[in-house]
């Protein structure tokens, strides 16, 4: 089925160098709608930089990035997010001194509601829209087992709960695609199953996903196929079993192992 789905994210020839460091060089791959694709590779392969460039937190030196038909390379992050491409961070970045419910309300698409003018002159319409958001938020919080914590300051949550809140916020925002930057980082291994379920559930609701993770068994259960990066570029694409036999992939990982011995 995914063979026929249209391409939602097209990365072509993307390059990003920092001074002397060639973080990403001529990176290219495509993601189809509704897929869950893993982005894997040894440390220093440039995966985080790639995510930063695609999501607008870093401007590429060269290359084209097309999301849902529109070229977005060089766009600032908030514009990319507004287009429907969202990314998470290696540490779950919640808004600490705001309540869980406020975290959800902020994640909701504001549709231009958060202006000064509307704050002073459209209060009734704002209230009604906020009520609708609250109803949706409560349901989502229930799904992620955070409803009882909705009035708690997000900064007081445990690491695992913060991760789940991140998922809930993404669900609230209902983007077209999410780039997960190491969703297992800082999470108790016992919660991996919960995270996997959350990913699958969000994917079923229609969100395309790209997942950076080092935990390869997890990547295998979560992802339909994978893109392998090494030294800044795309060295292989495919399913896990075939990647395990791929010479280039083995060299890249072995190289990492050898360097760490």
């Amino acid at each position, binding site marked *: 089925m995914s063979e026929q789905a249209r391409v939602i994210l097209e990365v072509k020839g993307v390059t990003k160098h920092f001074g002397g460091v060639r973080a990403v060089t001529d990176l290219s791959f495509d993601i189809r709608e509704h897929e869950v694709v893993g982005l894997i590779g040894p440390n220093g392969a440039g995966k985080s930089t790639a995510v930063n460039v695609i999501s607008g937190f870093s401007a590429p030196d060269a290359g084209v990035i097309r999301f849902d038909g529109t070229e977005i390379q060089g766009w600032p*992050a908030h514009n990319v997010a507004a287009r429907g491409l969202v990314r998470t961070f290696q540490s779950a970045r919640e*808004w600490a001194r705001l309540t869980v419910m406020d975290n959800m309300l902020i994640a909701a698409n504001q549709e231009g509601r958060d202006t000064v003018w509307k*704050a002073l002159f459209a209060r009734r319409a704002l209230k009604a829209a906020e009520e609708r958001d609250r109803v949706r938020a409560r349901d989502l919080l229930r799904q992620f087992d955070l409803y009882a914590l909705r009035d708690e300051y997000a900064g007081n949550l445990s690491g695992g709960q913060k991760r789940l809140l991140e998922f809930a916020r993404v669900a609230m925002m209902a983007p077209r695609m999410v780039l997960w930057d190491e969703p297992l980082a800082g999470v108790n291994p016992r919660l991996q199953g919960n995270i996997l379920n959350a990913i699958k559930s969000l994917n079923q609701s229609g969100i395309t996903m790209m997942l950076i993770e080092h935990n390869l068994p997890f990547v295998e259960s979560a992802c339909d196929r994978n893109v392998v990066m090494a030294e800044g570029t795309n060295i292989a694409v495919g399913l896990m079993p075939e990647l395990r036999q791929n010479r280039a992939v083995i060299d890249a990982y072995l190289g990492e192992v050898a360097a760490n011995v």
Partner: protein
Amino acid sequence: MSTYLESLIVLAAILSLLTLGLNVRWGWAGEFDLAYYATVAMGAYFGSVVILPKYSGPAHLGYILGLNQPFLVAMVAAGILGGVASLIIGFFALRNLRGDYLSIATVAFAIVSWQVLAQDPNLFDGFNGVYGMPQPFESVLKLGPDAYALFFFVMCVVLFLITYVILEMLYRSPFGRTLRAIREDEYAAAAFGRNVFVNKLKAYVIGGVVAGVGGCLFAVYLADWNPYVWAPIETFLIYGAIFIGGQANQRGITLGAIILLVTIPEVTRFMPNIPGHADLFPALRDILSAILVILVLRFRPQGLIPEVHPRDPGDGQAAVAGSVANV
């Protein structure tokens, strides 16, 4: 005695108003801006030269403008100037600078602008200062001194309340929540679609408008002043009022302003004047204020009246539905 209390409340109203403006920048948006009082000074100076008649003193000094306008016009003009100045400063400062670098740049700006305002003999009368400010509505109302004092009192309290209410509406709106998200983590805010720069700039400008209005009001309250009133270090005391009172909580901030900016100076004012050490008690007062700030930041960083903790009423249904997250 009641007029003494009246004048204290007037001072409290004006200084609280000014503190509410800084709170928009710091408490809501998390911008550690040390140029706030410079914007207040701009409002004061600009408002003054709008109210005052054309300069007619000795030739080696002088001030610009001198439009002889009524107070309300000056107040609006000062507010607009504060907003426009903040727009320009904020546009450059907020694009690239954060945290401690923003503070250094803004202090530097505050010192530069103070030096220009205070030293240039032709801009605003140099170190001579400003004196003989006509009082608002004085010629129109023709009241006796006590009645006028009461009028001034009511006017200040009303201005304070109007500012308070408008800012409170902004705080509770989606705009306010967006600012708080930016305050907590601006990268996450950007990742969820917020234009961080534009929103920070909006907060900066709003703070600037309040600063301009408050500065103009403070100028007519003081009626005579020299540049040292606007020394850059004063910004710290307004921050102190916010830290002590309660960040991002307007009730707390008003309390903090009353404690730090009105009560402590008033109490220390009645200390005896030790000949030869005229600076002793003002110095002690500032030391006391700074120590108080340090203590509060260490032991009660949320302030006396902390930020409001919103609660969601919920919908009365079960807490745990078919949970996605449960294995």
